């Protein structure tokens, strides 16, 4: 299985190079805000890597090669899910190195440190979008899944843009108040544990669907 993840990294040598430039641009464009720099840049680039590994698989018609090797289809699916976390780790290392360089060279740029809350936010966002994306990818392949991916992105960004300010304004709404009350009562650790439980639940459902779809695929 780990050689499949190694493959996903080896085919993306160019993407990895592009990543340095991408992360720099992200750091430059998030100068005036505080926290989103770390979350946004790492989430975006990790998801680019997830997408690009799927694209390379498709371009090389790898389903035929991989499914002719002595391995189970579940190995292929599992490797893709684990790769989300490997890509995130790589991207976080990128972020740490780049911000360190900015500090050492004393460049006139604002950089914001890595935080535990940030990492949890990134993981949650990535598990959510990949968790929706992967079952579609394993069912219909990369080309057709691109449409779904576009819709997903559109919904997350514009939907997020419209909904979040609404929610903040309507602080009186019982629902939001309820949630805030619920969270306020708990310790930080409890909240973190809850977030992880939701993530695991999402992963399990998404994985089960992906596996079910991929086992039925014909090439």
């Amino acid at each position, binding site marked *: 299985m780990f050689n499949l993840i190694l493959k996903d990294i080896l085919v993306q040598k160019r993407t990895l190079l592009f990543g340095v430039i991408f992360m720099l641009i992200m750091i430059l464009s998030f100068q005036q805000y505080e926290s989103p720099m770390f979350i946004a840049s790492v989430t975006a680039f990790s998801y680019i890597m997830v997408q690009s590994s799927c694209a390379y698989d498709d371009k*090389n018609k790898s389903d035929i090669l991989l499914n002719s090797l*002595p391995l189970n289809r579940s190995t292929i699916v599992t490797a893709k899910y684990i790769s989300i976390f490997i890509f995130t780790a790589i991207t976080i290392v990128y972020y740490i190195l780049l911000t360190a360089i900015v500090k050492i060279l004393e460049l006139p740029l604002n950089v914001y440190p890595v935080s535990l809350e940030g990492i949890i936010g990134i993981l949650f966002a990535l598990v959510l979008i990949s968790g929706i994306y992967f079952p579609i990818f394993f069912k219909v392949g990369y080309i057709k899944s691109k449409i779904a991916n576009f819709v997903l992105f559109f919904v997350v960004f514009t939907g997020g843009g419209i909904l979040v300010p609404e929610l903040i304004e309507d602080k009186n709404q019982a629902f939001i108040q309820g949630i805030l009350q619920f969270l306020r009562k708990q310790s930080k650790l409890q909240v973190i544990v809850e977030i992880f439980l939701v993530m695991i639940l999402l992963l399990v459902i998404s994985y089960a669907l992906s596996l079910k779809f991929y086992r039925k695929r014909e090439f």
Partner: protein
Amino acid sequence: MSPILEVKNLKKSFKGFALKDVSFTLEKGYIMGFIGPNGAGKSTTIKLIMNLLKRDDGEIKIFGLDNIKHEKEVKDRIGFVFDENYFYEELTLMEMKRVIAPFYKNWNDSLFNKYIKEFSLPPKSKIKELSKGMKMKFSIAVALSHDAELLIMDEPTSGLDPIVRSELLEILTFLIQDENKSVFFSTHITADLDRIADYITFINNGDIVFSCPKDDIFKKHGLVKGPKEMLNDDVRKYFIGIRENRFGFEGLTENRQQVKRMLRDKAIIDKPSLDDIMLYYARGSQNV
């Protein structure tokens, strides 16, 4: 001893094409050529054997084991070579090997390196930089480096020049000297099989026309040439296909002895090539 590959009543339908009741058996130590026109069902059959397609009905046993129930074990003992390049083009030969090798229980690195040298492949080049012949050789090197007992090849010679094709056939001939190995080899370039195949399985339009030792085919079939007057209905029924022109006819019979008795020395009976056989069966009684 169970046969190395046994396909029984295999069925699979698509829109506009169906594999109907395909059966054949390959014994250990032999090369079987799998021939048929384009679109006859060769690749479909091979994909069903590799479980890349799901069969509708029937049975496929490899090394006596069901190909789906024992998928991993079976594939560990199979070497495959496909008509196109399915390797990651962005990787170098060595990187690709590093990804593939750990999946096989009996991967033999020194054997692989020996083939790379023998085929003069550049180990540090990316796969997309290789010529078609080199990609095919790399594919063969991978297929031969894990002690596979059965080699499944889908049109390995298509698009290769005569020199590379000839090299490939030599490798196969050498390989088969080990009596534990067998080769299942689909192609529409039948000249390749004249040289190396022991058995021929002929598929046409989703049906197996015959599956038997190559020598039997040439013993039974005859390419008959003679004057038109001799073609009465009695004679015609012994022909699979007949081509007529102003001067005479040429036809393929499956019953060489009988036709010889009927026509005596008024007609010439030649040994048909596999191409002739494929052509007459595929076109049937229509004008060939």
